[in-house]
C-alpha cells in the first residue's frame, strides 16, 4: 500500500479592510507575480430576480460594460486591453463578478475602472436594445442552437426546486429580456451596485500600502447606500423523488442528471465537504465508483460526471444547492437501469469508503485546488467570493487541510443522510436527433 503523498501547505497572504462606505477589500500581495488580478463581486445573482424579470442580472452585467458617467461605451475595455490587460464579467446564481488581469503598471487604472463602474452607470436605450440582442445571441449559441445546451444548469433546477428564485432559468426568457427597461436597470443599479454590497479583491504583484491608498482614493468617495438583504431562498428538502423528462431535439444520445440536496455550504462546511469528497469518490474520473460500475461493468453509460454547486464550483454558492450526478447513455438505454446501479453504489458508499480511497481522492482534489491558484486572477476570485459569502478570505489557505481532515466515517454518514433518502430530482434527456 502506497503511503500518502504529503499535502502542500498554502500561505497566500490575505489583508482585509473596509472603507467607510461599506466596501470590503481583500488584498493578496505576491511580489513574484508579474501581473495583478482584480475581481469585484456584487452580492446579486440570478436567484435575486423577481418573476417577470428572469435573466435581468445577467443582462445588467452586460450593461455595466456600456459606459459610465466618465467613460463612453467601449472606453473601459479599450483602456484595459490597450494597456495589455484582459477583462470580463460573469453572472452566477448568488453573485455577479467583474474581473481583470493587468500588467502591474496598470493596477491603478484597473482600480479606477472598477470604482468608475460602481460610482455611476451610463444607461441608454440604444445600449440596452443592443445588449438585449447580444444576450439573445449568447443564449442561442450556448443553449438553443446546440444539443444539451441547458444541461444541467438550466434544466435540472426546475425539477428539484419549487420557488421562482431557485427554479428559474438564469439566462432568462426572450419575453422577459425584451421587456426590460432603462428604469428597471436604474433601479437595479441603485439597489444592488453599492459599495456595501460589494467586495473588491486584488492579488498579485502589488504594494499593500500604495494599493490601499489607490483604493481609498478611487472608491472612498462613492456614497454609502444600505446593502439589500440577501434573498431568502430556503426550500424544505423534498420528501419524494421528482422526475422529469425532456426531449432535446438536437441531442443524438440520451443523457440524465440526478440531483441531491446538500447541507448548507456555509453553515455546515464539514458535512458539505464530506459530500464534495463523496462526489469525487463517486464520479471523479476513471477510478471513480460510478465510472467503474456504469461505464466499465454494466455498460449502461459512456460518460459520468459529478459536480456540486450551480456551475461546479462548490465554494461559490449558498444554500440551497445540489450535488449533481450526470451521465451520457448509449443509444436506447433508459434511466431506470442507471438509477438502480447508482442507488446500489450510493448504498455501498454509505457503508463507508476505503480509507486509502478517500486519501487518494483528497490528494487529487487538493492538488487540483492548488493548481487553479497559480493564476493571480483565480486567486483574486477565490479570495473575493470567500470574503463575500463567508467573511473568511483566509479559508483560501485552510481548505486543503479542511479537506484532508474529512474521514471515511464522515463521508459515509453524509452520503447516507443526503443521498440515501427518496427526495431527489431525476431528469431524463430524450434524444430528438437519434439516427
Amino acid at each position: 500500500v502506497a503511503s500518502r503523498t504529503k499535502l502542500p501547505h498554502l500561505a497566500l497572504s490575505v489583508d482585509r479592510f473596509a472603507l467607510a462606505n461599506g466596501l470590503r477589500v481583500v488584498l493578496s500581495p505576491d511580489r513574484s507575480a508579474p501581473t495583478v488580478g482584480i475581481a469585484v463581486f456584487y452580492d446579486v445573482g440570478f436567484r435575486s430576480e423577481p418573476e417577470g424579470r428572469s435573466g435581468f442580472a445577467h443582462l445588467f452585467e452586460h450593461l455595466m460594460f456600456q459606459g459610465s458617467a466618465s467613460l463612453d461605451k467601449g472606453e473601459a475595455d479599450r483602456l484595459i486591453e490597450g494597456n495589455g490587460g484582459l477583462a470580463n464579467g460573469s453572472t452566477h446564481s448568488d453573485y455577479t463578478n467583474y474581473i481583470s488581469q493587468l500588467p502591474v503598471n496598470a493596477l491603478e487604472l484597473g482600480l479606477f475602472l472598477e470604482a468608475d463602474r460602481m460610482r455611476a452607470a451610463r444607461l441608454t436605450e440604444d445600449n440596452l436594445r443592443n445588449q438585449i440582442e447580444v444576450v439573445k445571441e449568447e443564449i442561442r449559441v450556448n443553449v438553443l442552437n446546440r444539443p444539451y445546451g441547458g444541461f444541467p444548469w438550466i434544466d435540472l433546477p426546475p425539477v428539484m426546486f419549487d420557488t421562482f428564485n431557485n427554479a428559474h432559468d438564469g439566462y432568462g426568457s426572450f419575453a422577459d429580456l425584451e421587456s426590460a427597461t432603462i428604469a428597471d436597470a436604474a433601479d437595479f443599479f441603485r439597489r444592488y451596485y453599492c459599495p456595501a454590497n460589494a467586495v473588491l479583491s486584488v492579488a498579485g504583484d502589488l504594494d499593500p500600502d500604495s494599493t490601499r491608498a489607490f483604493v481609498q482614493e478611487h472608491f472612498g468617495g462613492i456614497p454609502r447606500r444600505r446593502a439589500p438583504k440577501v434573498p431568502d431562498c430556503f426550500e424544505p428538502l423534498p420528501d419524494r423523488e421528482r422526475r422529469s423528462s425532456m426531449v432535446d431535439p438536437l441531442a443524438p444520445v440520451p443523457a440524465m442528471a440526478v440531483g441531491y440536496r446538500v447541507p448548507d455550504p456555509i453553515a455546515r462546511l464539514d458535512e458539505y465537504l464530506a459530500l464534495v469528497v463523496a462526489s469525487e469518490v463517486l464520479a471523479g474520473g476513471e477510478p471513480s465508483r460510478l465510472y467503474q460500475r456504469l461505464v466499465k461493468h454494466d455498460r449502461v453509460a459512456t460518460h459520468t460526471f459529478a459536480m456540486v454547486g450551480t456551475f461546479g464550483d462548490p465554494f461559490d454558492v449558498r444554500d440551497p444547492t445540489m450535488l449533481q450526478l450526470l451521465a451520457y447513455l448509449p443509444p436506447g438505454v433508459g434511466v431506470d437501469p442507471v438509477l438502480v446501479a447508482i442507488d446500489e453504489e450510493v448504498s455501498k458508499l454509505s457503508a463507508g469508503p476505503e480509507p486509502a480511497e478517500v486519501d487518494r481522492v483528497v490528494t487529487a482534489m487538493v492538488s487540483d485546488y492548488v493548481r487553479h491558484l497559480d493564476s493571480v486572477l483565480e486567486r483574486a476570485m477565490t479570495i473575493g467570493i470567500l470574503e463575500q459569502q463567508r467573511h473568511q478570505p483566509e479559508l483560501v489557505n485552510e481548505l486543503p487541510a479542511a479537506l484532508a481532515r474529512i474521514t471515511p466515517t464522515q463521508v459515509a454518514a453524509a452520503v447516507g443522510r443526503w443521498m440515501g433518502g427518496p427526495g431527489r430530482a431525476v431528469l431524463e434527456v430524450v434524444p430528438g436527433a437519434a439516427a
Partner: protein
Amino acid sequence: VTVAAVPEVGPPRPLRPPRVSQRALANGLRVSVARRAGIPRFEVSLRIPTVLAGRADLAARQLVLAETLLSGTATATSVEISEAAQRLGGSLSTSADADWVVVSGSALSVSVVPFLRLLAEVVCEATFPAAEVALQRDRVVQEIVLARSQPETIARDALVARYFGRHAYGRGTPEPEAVAGVRPAALRAARDNRLLPSGSELVLVGDVAAPRALDAVESALGGWRGPARATSDHQLARPAPPAPGPTVIVDRPGAVQTNIRLAGPAVPRGHADFPPLMLANMIFGGYFTSRLVDNIRERRGYTYSPGSGVEHRQVASTFTVAADVGRDVTAAALVEILYELGRMVSTLADPAELEAARRYVQGTLAMAIQTQAGLTSYLATLASSGLGIEYLREYPRLLNQVTVEAVREVSGRYLAPTRLITVMVGDARIIRAGVEALVDVELQSRRESAG
C-alpha cells in the same frame, strides 16, 4: 455625478523570459525545463510526432492510439494507472491531432520522480489490452457522435475539408466506423513504429530545480528505445493553398444561428510577416476592442462572440474568422465581415489602434507564460515550431517595429477577402437566398454519423 479623470499608466515592464535548461538524451528525446515556483506543483507535456499518410483509417488509429495509451501496461491496469496518478496529486491525459500524440500531466512537485516513472511506463510499455481497447473505442465513437452534433464541430470539419481537401489536415473528426475497426495489434505496431523518442519534445515547468528535473526525466525516459526516425518520415507534405471558390453552406435545418467561418493562408511564427500579421489580426478581430467585435456585436447585435485568429499546424498556418450569428442576419453579418476585411486591406489603421493591439499582445504574452500550465504550453509550442526561448525576447521587439503601413501591407497578403474561403453552417432554406445575392454558393447536406 462627478466625472473622474483616468489615471496615467506608466511604461510597461519589459518581459522577463524564464530561464530554460535543455538536454538532449541519447535516444533523441529533447527535454526543456523551467523553474516556476508559484505553487508546489509541476506540469509536463510530451509531444511525439506521428505522421499520417492521410488515409482515414490512420486518422482514426491516431485518435484511438492516444485514447487507449493509458489503458494498461504489463504491470498496471488502466484503473491502477489513474489511481497512481491521483495518489501523486496529479493526472495524466492524452490527445492527438494530425501532427502529434501529446501526453500531458501535472502533479505535486514532491511527486516528480514517481510521476515521470508513471508517464514513462505508459509511453514505453502500453500493452493495449483487448477488452480495454474495445471499451475505449466505444467511448470514442460516442464522443464523435456527441461532437458531431455540436455546430462548432460541424463547422470546423466543413472548414478543414474545404480548406485542406484530401490532405491529412482535411480529415476533421474521424468516421465512427473507422474508429470501430482499429485493432489492438495495429496499436501495438503504432507504439513500436510511431511512438519514438527521436524527434519528440518534453517540457517540464514547476517548483522543481532544473538539474533535478532534467535528471528525473533522463532517469525515467532514458531507456525509451525505438528505431531512429528518418526526417522524411515525420514531414507531412505542405498543403497547397485552397483554390478560391463558392461559399459552402452546410445545411442544418432548424438552426437558429449560422456559424460563419473564413480561412486563408498565413505564415508560421518565425516568418518576418508574422508580427505585423498578428497585429493586423488583432485590429481586425483578435480581441474584444477590435473592429469586428465593435461592428457586429457592439453596434449591430448580430452575434455574441465573433473573432479572428492565426492558427498554426506543423506545415500550415491559417488566418481564420469565426462568427455565430442570428440566422436572420446571416447575409448582413457577412457584408460587415467582408467590409471590415476590405477596410484592413485598403486603408491605414489609426496609430492608436496599432499601439493598443501591440500593448495587448505584449501584455497578454506576459500573462500566458505566468502560470506553470501556461508556460508549459508556450514552451511546447516554441519547441515544436523550431524556435528557441530567445523568441520570447525577439517577438516583443519585432512587434515594436511594426508600422501602420506594414499592417496594411500584410493585410493585403493575408486578410484580403479574395484569398479566403468561406463555410457556413445553418438553415439553408432561410439563409441561402440572402447569401447568394452576395457570393456564389455551393450547398452541402450534412455528413450523417451513425448514432
